[in-house]
């Protein structure tokens, strides 16, 4: 049996890949995918804990996260398409309309 630590490490690695992807990549689609990666990193640790503690609530939470992530993906992609139509680019450095 694989010990809990391994799962947690995997989770952390996946999460950190997501974080670095989000902070360094300039294409908005890839940043978006990095966000998904972070969510899945969290999911892994939730399931690992759920199994380890024999508590189903962790898995239930994961289902919620997957559902919400799906919804978020749909809306997020829609926003990205709208943005792309306006600016003809997916490069995030050209989007600073919200500057103060």
């Amino acid at each position: 049996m694989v010990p809990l630590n391994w799962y947690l490490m995997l989770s952390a690695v996946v999460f950190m890949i997501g974080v670095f992807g989000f902070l360094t990549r300039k294409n908005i689609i890839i940043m978006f995918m990095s966000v998904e990666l972070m969510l899945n990193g969290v999911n892994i640790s939730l399931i690992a804990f759920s199994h380890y503690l024999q508590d189903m609530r962790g898995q239930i939470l994961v289902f919620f996260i997957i559902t919400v992530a799906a919804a978020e993906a749909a809306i997020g992609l829609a926003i990205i398409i709208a943005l792309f139509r306006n600016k003809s680019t997916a490069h995030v450095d050209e989007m600073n309309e919200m500057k103060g």
Partner: protein
Amino acid sequence: MNNYLLIPFLPLAAFLINILLGRNFLKEKAHWVSILAVAGSWVVAVMALVDTMAGKTINEDLYSWFVSGNFKVSVGFLIDQLTAVMLIVVTTCSMLIHIYSVGYMHGDKGFYRFFAYLSLFTFCMLMLVMANNFLQLYFGWEGVGLCSYFLIGYYFDKKSASDAGKKAFIVNRFGDFGFGLGIIMIFLTFGTVYYEPVFAQAGGFANHTVNFLGYDVHLMTLIALLLFCGSIGKSAQMPLHVWLPDAMEGPTPVSALIHAATMVTAGVFLVARCSPIFSLSETALMVVALTGAITSLFAATIGLVQNDIKRIIAYSTISQLGYMFLACGVGAYSAGVFHLYTHAFFKALLFLCAGSVMHAMAGELNLQKMGGLKKYMPVTYITMLLASLSIAGVPGFAGFFSKDEILWLAYSGPSPVGKLVWGIGTVVAFLTALYSFRLIFLTFHGKFRGTHEQEHHLHESPKVMTIPLILLCVGAIASGWVGIPHLLGGGAHFTEFMKPVLGHPEGHGTHSEEWMVMAVSVIAGFSGIGLAYFMYLKRADIPVRLAARFSAVHKILLNKYYVDEFYSFLIVRPAIWIAKNILIGITDAKIIEAIVNGIPKAIGGFSQVIRKVQTGFLQHYATIMATGILIIVAIMLLR
């Protein structure tokens, strides 16, 4: 009681009818309502006089005006000897002047408005004299002031008229300021503002002192002087006399009714009514006497050189009012009221005659443009001459008796300043005769000095105007006969009648002294008339040479001692300057607004600096967030 309610409320009803219906319905008939109302009041007032002569006095409340805790005040009426005399003076003068006005105001576009105001005035004046408490007195007091404001500014499209009305009201407010505080002091002292308990308890406070604004002062002196502030304003005594000459901007019947016969004497009435309080303070009495004496001298000297016929009479009024205060100040309240009563007739008559002259001269007021009018307007001439004889104190006329009584009581009374004010009074008697006959001679004698056009128009006034003149003339001659002194074989009925309210004035002197005082004042009067005759008819060049010789004095007199200019310089302009430049310019704009607008500005400036942090780049925010999380995690791990 119920009948007596008619006295004030008939004129009130007339006012309401005229003001509501006058413009559209009554129009040229508006005077009927007012005249009938005041005639009704007069009839009831005569009944009231008869009742009081029989010894019946009335003191009743009509309804509770307002109550707050232990402060209670009603609308109520007191009819005693003093009130009854005032009622007769007010309603008689008012009625005759109402009638006179029908002719004088004929064809004026505000005809109904004029009569409405006259009725309102009569109502307020009657409320004033009939009050049984100080607050209702104050109501009437302010009410007559308001009517005076309306009527002075009757020709409101003229700037000078509206200025004069406003000035009258505001100057009076200065006096009322003291009067109001006096009422408050009365309430705080006695716990009530009704005359009866106040006067009954006053003696018990004779030696009390009170702390007023940090000073320990004699209580009764304080109250008396505060009340006297009101009198100074209303009766145009120094230093608040400035409004009365300007008040001559109003129509002449108004000057006769309000600014000669009735309203301006309210101050004297107040002092007489409060005689139980004044008598307890020697200081207050002295102030009253000296104020009266100085004012009467001061106004008489101004009257000598004025050329405006109405202003001369106005200064004469101020001077005569000073006489009345002089009387009250030496403790001779009944003599003061007696003079008030005779003065009402001859002074109203003088004004109405002046109005008649103006009517003939198409509004001309300058004495120097008149002359020789006696052949054109005999009735006016004779009545005005008789009125002048009366004011000059020629024996037999009303003015003689009242003036003589004042001078005698000043001379013989216990007042420490009695001899001094007697001296001033005698000089004033001389001056009064001089300026009164200057007016007569310049107006009616000699040659006409106006334009031909004016001369062509000269005419006697219509009957509706001359009949009131004749009736008032009877009063100017005969009204004094009720107070013929014992010395001349009379019964001094007036003083006796007033005794229950005003007490008996003390005079200690021998008969020969009394004859001497009388002789001196008669000589003063006749020498005034003689000098006027000499200077203005025989040797008309003398006044011109005198004016040239003493040009500085003449200029000061002509400019009324520059009191108006002094007030304008000292009060009016500084107040507006402070408002404009300091309060609005500095306090509001530079201090308060600077703080109020400064704080948002400072916040805004700070925001301008920190907005730079918001770059708008998604990844900057994300980096900051990530860094923040790292720091938090680091803190948690290393703790």
